[in-house]
């Protein structure tokens, strides 16, 4: 994109997404009963900014809609209209349509007026904004006199370099209160030629009191024109001191006549008259920290000032903007409120991914280097070994930081779900409220993007199938309004996202009957409640008696499950009859690295994700019990855990005769069950970089991905839960005669 306008246009749409997010946020806050004027301001400003940008690009449809919404928001902002729940729901719809218009404009698409017009009509009816006639504003521009002097003689900007020169003006006093002097100091070239150094003068000045030094660099010519022997800099210094002017002059005694020196006492004005902590002049890092108490300043003439400005800090340390009160009487918002903008940089995702990949390579490289050093037999306390140790630490830190760049709050995704709930509940005639929690949980950007579809489907399911109709709810003694809750949290190195509803719960009898009818299970199958619930994840399963136009259109929970699995995650379901259903998704924090245990099986090296391993043990005669020719269990502290031979399960070798003396990894699964995996040996524990297999091989049962080890060898990364479920599914569903035969 070399066309600057195209670039600006692209950035406009990105910015719009942020504005839409803060619009949704603000509306949510309003919906929660917050009537803070700043919240309404945020909502107003978001619409206003979208309109402004859209106007610049001639996006008329967007401007038209945004303008009407802006006017409605203005009614709210000015207190002429007090929105109730219904109004806020309409605002939400407007925000959704606004989002559609933004995206349509971005993709050169259109939104039908069948969508926009009814919404605008409702808005007009509800809020009743009258289009104000464009006022005729008489304003005569005031001309600025810019005297640039003789062009030829003065290529630089003489009047700019003179700008900071303090005039004997009370308002120019840079620091409120106290006694002291403002000193303007501009050395002549002769000052430098005679061997003087301004820095020493400033240091001497510092001995008199607190000193703030500001360097004026505006007179600096460009590099090719610079004459090193000529000084181009001048300074403004403020010194807080009880000393006399004479004492200050004495500091400059030896450069008298070699510089321009103006010394002005600043104690001639009453203290604390500055309306804003803009110091008169620029700062260099002060030689000693200036002591400036934060002060709420009096304004020179309150009648000419729109709003009180609150001084917060010194200008050099201007923090992210504190929100000044919108009315002079209102207290300032505490810092750390969501309205506080952060300094951000937009970076092309491709660049970050490149960095992630490079860091991945670095980790592998580092591992190879460590291995070579170990193999070279260097003592562990040699400088190389300790240096390598530090290198390892740094590599990890870099990796973590890089991962953090990719992480973003899951909030944007949750907001999209708000719309899904609003639209789907409206289409099936249910009253539904969405609750969200943990929106600030940070998740890898790719994960967020790829979660959108499965989550949308789950939310629709919850509204469509999970919740009962208002009448049924009332009959069951529940409130009319159904609740869908969406939460995200970090739990033991993974992200757990839950979608729950307070509906009727899974009708297990019906699920079972349906599964039998579809031939998914034998008629006499002995299934636990959990087994029945999990039938929902079988391909092609749909329990809705009538397929609604919302969910169940070919896409079932099996698709949801496979998209979650593709992200290295799992999905579990719990349900309580009459109380509701909860789907729980557990995802890895990142798709790029993994802490793994390196194990050996049948001369193959495998990586087992560390977070799946509960413990490792060596089996004794008493530990292993055979349940059949190929089924073993391990007895651990009184309980029995199924044993799986990793080598056999992956087809590396036939099942072993005896597992006594062998090593097993005790694996904890998402559903809380445990399993034991028999391996030949444990080699190491280290972080590995995940390299996806699916691009080349498609999904491989029991295998999550691959990695490159320190010695350059490729190793497969195990998906223990998948492996165990595949293996146990096989033992359960495999007819006995086949097992005997094969």
């Amino acid at each position, binding site marked *: 994109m070399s066309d600057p306008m195209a*670039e600006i246009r692209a950035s406009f749409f990105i910015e719009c997404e942020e504005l839409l997010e803060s619009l949704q946020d603000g509306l949510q806050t309003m919906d929660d009963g917050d009537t803070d004027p700043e919240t309404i301001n945020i909502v107003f400003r978001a619409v206003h900014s979208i309109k402004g940008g859209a106007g*610049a690009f001639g996006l008329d449809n967007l401007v038209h809609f945004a303008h009407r919404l802006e006017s409605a928001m203005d009614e709210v902002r000015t207190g002429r209209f007090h929105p109730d729940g219904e109004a806020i729901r309409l605002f939400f719809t407007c925000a959704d349509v606004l989002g559609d218009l933004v995206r349509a404009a971005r993709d050169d698409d259109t939104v039908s007026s069948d969508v926009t017009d009814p919404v605008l009509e409702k808005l007009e009816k509800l809020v009743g904004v009258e289009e104000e006639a464009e006022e005729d504003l008489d304003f005569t521009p005031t001309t600025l006199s810019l005297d640039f002097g003789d062009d030829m003689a003065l290529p630089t900007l003489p009047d*700019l370099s003179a700008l900071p*020169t303090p005039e004997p003006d009370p308002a*120019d006093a840079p620091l409120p209160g106290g006694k002291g002097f403002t000193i303007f100091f501009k050395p002549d070239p002769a000052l430098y030629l005679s061997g003087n150094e301004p820095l020493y003068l400033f240091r001497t000045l510092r001995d008199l009191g607190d000193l703030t030094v500001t360097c004026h660099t505006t007179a600096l010519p460009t590099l090719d024109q610079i004459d090193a022997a000529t000084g181009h800099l001048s300074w403004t210094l403020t010194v807080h001191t009880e000393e006399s002017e004479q004492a200050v002059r004495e500091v400059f005694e030896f450069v008298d006549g070699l510089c321009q020196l103006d010394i002005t006492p600043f104690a001639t004005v009453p203290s604390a008259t*500055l309306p804003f902590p803009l110091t*008169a002049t620029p700062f260099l890092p002060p030689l000693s920290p200036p002591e400036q108490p934060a002060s709420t300043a009096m304004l020179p003439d309150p009648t000419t000032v729109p709003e009180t400005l609150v001084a917060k800090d010194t200008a050099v340390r201007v923090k992210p903007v504190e929100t*000044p009160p919108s009315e002079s009487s209102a207290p300032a918002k505490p810092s750390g409120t969501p309205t506080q903008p952060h300094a951000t940089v937009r970076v092309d995702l491709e660049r970050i991914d490149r960095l992630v990949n490079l860091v991945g390579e670095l980790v592998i490289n580092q591992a190879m280097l460590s291995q070579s050093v170990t193999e070279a037999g260097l003592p562990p306390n040699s400088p190389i070994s300790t240096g390598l140790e530090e290198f390892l630490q740094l590599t990890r830190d870099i990796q973590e930081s890089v991962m953090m760049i990719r992480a973003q709050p899951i909030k944007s995704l949750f907001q999209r779900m708000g719309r899904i709930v609003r639209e789907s509940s409206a289409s099936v005639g249910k009253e539904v409220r969405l609750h969200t929690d943990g929106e600030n949980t940070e998740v890898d950007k790719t994960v967020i993007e790829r979660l959108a579809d499965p989550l949308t489907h789950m939310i629709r399911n919850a509204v469509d199938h999970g919740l009962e109709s208002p009448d049924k709810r009332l009959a069951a003694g529940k409130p009319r309004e159904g609740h869908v809750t969406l939460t995200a949290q970090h739990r033991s190195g993974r992200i757990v996202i839950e979608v729950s509803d307070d509906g009727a719960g899974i009708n297990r009898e019906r699920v079972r009957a349906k599964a039998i009818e579809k031939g998914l299970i034998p008629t006499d199958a002995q299934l636990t409640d959990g087994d029945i619930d999990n039938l929902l994840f079988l391909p092609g399963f749909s329990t809705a008696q009538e397929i609604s136009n919302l969910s169940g259109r070919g896409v079932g929970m099996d698709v949801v499950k496979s998209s979650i699995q593709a992200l290295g995650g799992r999905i579990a379901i719990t349900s309580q009859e009459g109380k509701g259903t909860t789907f729980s998704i557990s995802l890895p924090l990142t798709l790029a690295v993994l802490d793994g245990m390196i194990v050996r099986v049948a001369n193959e090296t495998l990586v087992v994700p560390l977070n799946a391993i509960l413990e490792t043990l060596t089996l004794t005669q008493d530990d292993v019990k055979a349940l059949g020719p190929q089924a073993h269990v391990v007895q651990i502290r009184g309980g029995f855990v199924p044993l799986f031979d990793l080598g056999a399960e992956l087809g590396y070798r036939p099942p072993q005769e005896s597992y006594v003396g062998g090593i097993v990894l005790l694996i904890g699964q998402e559903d809380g069950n445990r399993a034991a995996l028999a391996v030949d040996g444990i080699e190491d524990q280290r972080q590995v970089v995940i390299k996806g297999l699916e691009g080349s091989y498609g999904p491989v049962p029991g295998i999550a991905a691959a990695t490159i080890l320190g010695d350059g060898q490729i190793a497969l990364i195990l998906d223990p839960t998948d492996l165990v479920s595949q293996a146990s599914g096989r033992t359960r569903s495999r007819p006995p005669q086949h097992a005997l035969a094969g």
Partner: protein
Amino acid sequence: MALRDQLRVMVVDDMSTSRGLIANALDSFGIRNVASAADGPSALQKLATSPVHLVISDYNMPGMDGLQLLHALRTNGPTRGIGFLLITGRADREIIDMGKRLGMNNFLKKPFDPAGLRAAIEAIVGKL
């Protein structure tokens, strides 16, 4: 040397899109010395270290709005003489009157095209 070569301008707007649009237009006028800031306080901070002749500021910004910025500029000696062009989405009488009282040099209503911006600037500083 033409005025446009010497003129230093700062664009203040919380929307990077708007900053980009204005900077792009300024560039097309031949104005090369363009600084920008995303909010009033950082504009003031930047102005303290590198002064400009003209500030082009949006009115509607979070925290400190355009008129508050203007007021801060006008009540601080070194920035007192800086030209000020206010850009507003809604040209309310109230805003314009307040701007007038605070010493706003000119205003421009959104949406505007580069020619409109150029005219608004030239009304303050003269022919570019």
